[in-house]
């Protein structure tokens, strides 16, 4: 019997991967492989053709210039991505691609850079970067441990829920105490660290939705997460 295959689409890994976002892809791969799935990791670069129907889509943060560089290609594929999002494909968009999944973000020069509008969020340039270790409290996923580092200030519209709550001075904009965005199975967040390795509940949520959709209701085998538990405990104990 051949193993069941799961396709993970990685958006712009050449341009949108600062602050170790590569670790999100690796975490999904390992947590699938450890449960016996075979993983097809598909990197999408500007100019490439999108795969037919990926099971999970991930994207990371990038430098300002890189963001403007991938934006035309992203908009070109907007219809497909929106269709996937609406039909429930699990997606994780971190930092730069979180912003581009909203209505607009901004360019280095200060003008608005249109995004996909899949998430009802808008991002504007802000004074000073929001940088540091953070813990987001999510009702669905528990405490999410990460490191944020962004200049953009993101505000949520009525069509989207926050991913969680943070102390003021952190999160989407430093003022409203909210972090990230959640719409259907699309999650946007500013959490690097990267976010998935240390937050396996979030990683397994993406995996659970993906395998349920592909293979029907599935019970995910538990994994030995002692290394994760230790890393989480240590981060929570010395957060600053």
């Amino acid at each position: 019997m051949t193993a069941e295959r799961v396709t993970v689409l990685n958006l712009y890994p050449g341009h949108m991967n600062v602050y170790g976002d590569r670790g999100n892809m690796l975490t999904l791969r390992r947590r699938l492989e450890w449960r016996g799935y075979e993983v097809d990791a598909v990197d999408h670069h500007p100019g490439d053709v999108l795969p037919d129907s990926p099971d999970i889509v991930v994207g990371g943060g990038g430098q300002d210039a890189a963001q403007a560089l991938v934006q035309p290609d992203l908009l070109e594929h907007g219809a497909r991505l929106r269709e996937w999002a609406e039909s429930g494909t699990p997606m994780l968009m971190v930092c730069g691609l979180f912003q581009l999944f909203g209505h607009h973000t901004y360019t280095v020069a200060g003008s608005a850079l249109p995004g996909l509008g899949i998430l009802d969020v808008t991002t504007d340039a802000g004074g000073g970067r929001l940088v540091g270790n953070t813990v987001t409290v999510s009702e669905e996923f528990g405490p999410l441990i990460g490191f944020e580092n962004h200049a953009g200030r993101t505000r949520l519209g009525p069509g989207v829920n926050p991913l969680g709550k943070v102390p003021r001075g952190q999160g989407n904009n430093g003022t409203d105490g909210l972090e990230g965005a959640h719409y259907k199975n699309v999650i946007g967040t500013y959490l690097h660290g990267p976010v998935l390795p240390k937050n396996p509940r979030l990683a397994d949520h993406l995996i659970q939705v993906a395998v349920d959709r592909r293979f029907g209701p599935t019970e995910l085998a538990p994994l030995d997460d002692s290394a994760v538990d230790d890393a989480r405990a240590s981060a929570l104990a010395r957060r600053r």
Partner: protein
Amino acid sequence: MLGFRYSPAIAVGKLLRIALRLRGGGSALPGLVTEFFAPNLLSKVLGQLPRGVILVTGTNGKTTTTKILVELLSAHGLTVISNPSGSNYSRGILSALLGSVDMRGRLDADIAVLEIDEAHAVSFVRVIQPKVSLLLNVMRDQMDRYGEMDRTTQMLHKVAVATRDVLVVNFADPRLGSADFLRDVTARVSGFGISDRLRHLYAVDDELTSEVDEAPAAEAASPATVLEEVGTTSVVSFGGRTHEFQLPLDGFYNQVNGVAAVAACRAVLGDSFEPKRGLAALPSIVPAFGRGETLVVDGEEVQLVLVKNPGGFRVVMAAFEHSNVSTMIALNDNDADGRDVSWIWDVDFSPLGEGVDVVTGTRAHDLRLRLNYDEIPCSVVEPNPARALREFLARNPGERKRIYCTYTAMLAVRRILRLEALGEVA
């Protein structure tokens, strides 16, 4: 001639310097004080050097390259002053120079070779125009403090534009060798590089993710000084000929540093560069602090390797033999290390596939988690460096030992080992 105008400031600085020396340990304080009393002293002092100022900057390899370049120039009979590692900003440089100036601010030297980090280099060149600048590479380094690689490239571009005579640039680095980077440079450009055959050994950050978008640079010109072969004896080519040299520092990247220094030395000396004389100075080079130095502790050889960023980590791992070597990794997230340790996810740890003996530091648990996701066994997790070292030294007696450390972890490990070290080799 500066006359005695600066004498009071120099005197205060010198006295402070001596006082602090007696207390042990250098400091930027004397420079700070002197700068306060005589703000343009640095440019006045450096401005009198007959052969000017050579600036060395870039993300990785500054200290080692500076050291090699000083040796190469000294071998040609020049009196060279340099700043000790770590003092790579103007006050630290001034502190270092105070030891070499007389009360009139005269420097008994021909030339200064200064390593300056990227951010400080920009303010440095506003005051002092380097005669030659050596730009080593742009890699990810503590991005939560310095911003992004594009910004680092822009900083180095300002240095390039401010350079007077010769810009020596790494053509193997896709950002620095590009036509765009070199567009408005007025100095003569002289590149160094590596042969196509060795290309696979050279890690550029873009390749850590996947594609390099811009055509790998250097279409503008070909490098004048090229690393052709590496080994116990390495080979460099320039002026249409190949030359053998021996640089007893571990790792491919150090051979590249050696070639960078040769390129800069050629830029400084022009026709009076003597390959034989210069290259003969290389075999006696010893590793700089934390760059592969070896300590002997309880009869065990322990090699210390500083790692600061994914590019650097990947390069050093590729350089070393890993069989029959015990490995420890020390990861801290203090300000001087960079508080964001996300970068460890950009390091491919598979060269350590046999396993890591001990992980330590404030982020020991993150490191173990990282290794776990690369399916690399890790025996001991001990955040406390003293206990971790004791454990590490007790394991696998007689086997070579190597410790990769971030900056403050290196200081801690070194302090502990020094207390126990019987002596130092190489």
